[in-house]
């Protein structure tokens, strides 16, 4: 366990040494503040559009950070040949996978806290409203979603030849699920046989990342999500994360490192 934590610590340190996170945070803050400075019909109380734009930027930034960080972890170790001394510690390949995942996931969590803190301050300063439990639910679900994404990208980094190809394909899959995941069953019903069965199978097979996107609940000030549903979604995310990590380990343990 110590080895896994040590590996994760290295990943977190690497993240805050890089400039990606700061650039994305500053961009998000800048865009939000510029858009927030716009006045519509001399009404300073209008705030939901700002929350929506800020949340969109948070989601985009978080996905970019998660995919970008996870996609280069193992390929970079192999390319720089630092994987050999790492595995000679001795650290098993499974521990490398779990350590890398944990590092990326925790780093995403730290970033999310900063982003949501900014959102809460912006909204609170505008309408003196602090729905802290709503923020917590949204942050938690997004973090769970990022866990699945990080695990998926780590698995992808062991399949695809280059981090760029992996990142591109993963982003397409993630955006596709977020946009269409909820409606895939409706699409399936409208297809002729046997295409309907294939689409419906995909619907059950894919991780439903769209569940974790509760931006609308936050923007439109909907009531809190049932905590049991949050627990269910957490277990669902944990199962998919474990599945991707297991697949990654199965692939990694037989992968020649000097290729």
């Amino acid at each position, binding site marked *: 366990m110590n080895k896994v934590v040590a590996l994760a610590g290295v990943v977190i340190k690497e993240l805050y040494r890089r400039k990606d996170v700061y650039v994305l945070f500053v961009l998000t803050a800048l865009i939000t503040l510029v858009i927030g400075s716009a006045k519509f019909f001399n009404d300073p*109380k209008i705030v939901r559009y700002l929350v929506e734009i800020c949340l969109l930027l948070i989601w985009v930034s978080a996905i970019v950070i998660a995919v970008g960080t996870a996609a280069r972890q193992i390929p970079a170790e192999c390319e720089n040949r630092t994987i050999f001394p790492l595995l000679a510690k001795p650290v098993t390949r499974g521990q490398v996978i779990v350590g890398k995942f944990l590092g990326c996931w925790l780093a995403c969590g730290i970033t999310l806290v900063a982003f949501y803190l900014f959102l809460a301050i912006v909204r609170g300063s505008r309408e003196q409203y602090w729905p802290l439990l709503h923020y917590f639910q949204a942050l938690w679900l997004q973090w769970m979603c990022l866990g699945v994404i990080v695990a998926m990208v780590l698995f992808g980094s062991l399949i695809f030849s280059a981090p760029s190809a992996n990142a591109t394909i993963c982003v397409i899959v993630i955006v596709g699920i977020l946009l269409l995941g909820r*409606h895939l069953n409706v699409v399936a019903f409208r297809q002729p046989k046997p295409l309907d069965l294939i689409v419906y199978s995909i619907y*059950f097979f894919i991780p439903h990342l769209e569940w974790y996107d509760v931006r609308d609940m936050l923007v439109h000030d*909907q009531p809190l999500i*049932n905590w049991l549903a949050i627990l269910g979604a957490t277990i669902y995310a944990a199962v998919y994360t474990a599945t991707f990590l297991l697949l990654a380990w199965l692939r990694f343990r037989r992968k020649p490192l000097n290729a």
Partner: protein
Amino acid sequence: MRSKTLPYLVLLLLLAIDFSLATLLEPTASDWGRRAGADLLAVLLGDARRIFASHFFIKADVYFHAGYYPSIFDLEARPKDSSHMAGDDDGHDEERCEKNMQFMGRPTDWIERFGRNFFATQHEHLSGGREREILPWLRVSASLDPHRVDTYTVAAYWLRRTLGKPNEAEAFLREGLRANPDSYEILYELGCVYYESYKDVARARNIWQLAFEKLELQKGKKDEDELAKFYHDILLRLARLEEDQGNYALAADYLEQIINRDVAPNPDVLRQQIIELRQKAASKK
């Protein structure tokens, strides 16, 4: 000595040329900049502006329903017009809207059932001043497509009725009127601002009469049902205005016009009102 001063002299000459050119070109450049600013969206987006404008108008509708809104996969459930957002004096037709918005059937599987915990599943409308949240999207929609009349009327409706901002409503409607000079819808709403918010009866009467004239010009060009609705609304407004001013005979004439044009949803009620107005007019004499 000469070689040392020459570069400085050349530099001075270039600075003088820069300054002269700046004074010469500045007026042209600023004028071009102003025009470019106004047309920038048109240049960048072309006719796609209308698609984006429509998207932002729908966004306003989504906000109005607090996020509970049919997706592109439930197109038949989407509202066909903006009348549910604003327009009727007695508020919008809640019952009809409630019926239309029952697009979410029974979940077909556990994924769909569980997924419903994470998005809005209850039909509701913004109220208590929260309607202001739809305004940014309407503002953006109007900037992208100034010829979309609904944008101005819906925004003005909420600005004057709930948010207590008749000045902003008037300014926005006048902006819409400049882009759509023949719009009877905008004139109708402008008349409401003058009558209800400013209590300026004379101007409201003039504007509604102008709206009526513009409406007459649209005969045969637009959908009959839509025209009928506005015939009814404008004539009824004029009738109520004249009744309030004590011009009972004129008010009865306007109500008769509604019946003659066959645009009254409930003509018997209007007939009764005409009789009462005629009696009042006779007793006044």
